[in-house]
């Protein structure tokens, strides 16, 4: 989504978010992420205005004091930015890719099932299976910090069964053009 992203051409405009809409976003984030209300409050205080940065192709970035915190595509789920996830790594469920898949991810490729189901990969156990459409933190074999954030294209059990094609689409990753933007 952010492999190529240039603020001067890809941002259509910035508008402060109405407080009723802010409340709705806050409620949605609290229900979608595993985050305590007080922690979200510390990240995004109620009295601080959220700014909606409208981008090309229905991508929305929400910022507080210019710092990108939340990403949304169309009216899909809310993602934290990777920098925010690094600070609060537990807010999204985790999947893992094997070492061989890291360089493909860093080149902007979607993650294929075998990279997640192999020995170096990680999918949650069956009793904590993740359905398709879940935003996930993408971790990597042998690394502590997440390398990207993605969206489950298939459920984790389906990935194990089918084990081919795209398993996780990558929303943002280390070194993409959004990573480079610390402030908007």
């Amino acid at each position, binding site marked *: 989504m952010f492999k190529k992203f240039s603020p001067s051409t890809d941002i259509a405009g910035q508008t402060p978010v109405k407080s009723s809409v802010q409340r709705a976003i806050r409620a949605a984030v609290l229900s979608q992420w595993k985050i305590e209300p*007080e*922690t979200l409050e510390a990240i995004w205080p109620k009295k601080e205005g959220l700014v909606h940065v409208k981008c090309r192709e229905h991508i929305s970035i929400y910022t507080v004091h210019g710092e990108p915190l939340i990403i949304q595509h169309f009216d899909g789920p809310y993602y934290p930015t990777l920098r925010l996830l690094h*600070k609060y*790594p537990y807010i999204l469920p985790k999947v893992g890719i094997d070492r061989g898949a890291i*360089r493909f991810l860093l080149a902007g490729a979607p993650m294929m099932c075998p990279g997640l189901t192999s*020995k170096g990969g990680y999918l949650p156990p069956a009793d904590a299976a993740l359905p398709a459409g879940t935003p996930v933190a993408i971790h990597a074999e042998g690394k502590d*910090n997440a390398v990207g954030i993605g969206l489950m294209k298939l459920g984790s059990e389906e990935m194990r069964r089918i084990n081919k094609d795209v398993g996780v689409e990558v929303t943002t990753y280390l070194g993409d053009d959004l990573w480079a933007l610390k402030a908007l």
Partner: protein
Amino acid sequence: MPSKKNATPANPAPATEELEGPPPPEPVSPVQVLYCAVCSFPPEYCEFGSSLTRCKEWLKENYPDLYDKYYSENALTAKVGTLSLEAQTKLEKDTAKKEAKAEAKADAALKKKLASQITIKRIERNKRKHVTAIHGLDAFGVDLKKASKQFASKFATGSSVTKNLQGQDEVVVQGDVSDEIVDMIEAGVGVLKGIPVDNVEIVEEKKKKGGD
């Protein structure tokens, strides 16, 4: 005047009591992730970037223990993990290639930068009125908006970033301040730091006869 501490039990301050309930839950404090000063990745990912050699130098100098953690011989064997030997060799080759490519690119960019010109144009608006257009600052990594603000406050005048006829951004300052700006560039004031003054050229644009 009685201080709050000396309030008698017969006269309790309700506001204080309310505050003494169960403490409000504390926010979880964020993990402070260290980012590489060279490639901006967490150092564990430097090996996938295009500046590994410089990243390693930086880490060794600033965080020697982390350097050992990631690049000691043991770490290198452990790191390969489930990757096959061929795949690991390929990865290393790719990294070296990427690095060489990035270096070539950086070299080219530097050459281009050193060759690029800054034009300060004195434009006549009226008989005694001028504006000064500064073009090409962005090639030296100067944030044009910041430069514009700096000029505006330095000269106490209007300044803006506008597109010229070729559609390129330039800074336009009200008044004739071309010589002063050359001085500022020479002194490397604020955001103008590091610009070689040899690359600066002053030109003059006279008002065209019968122009608007």
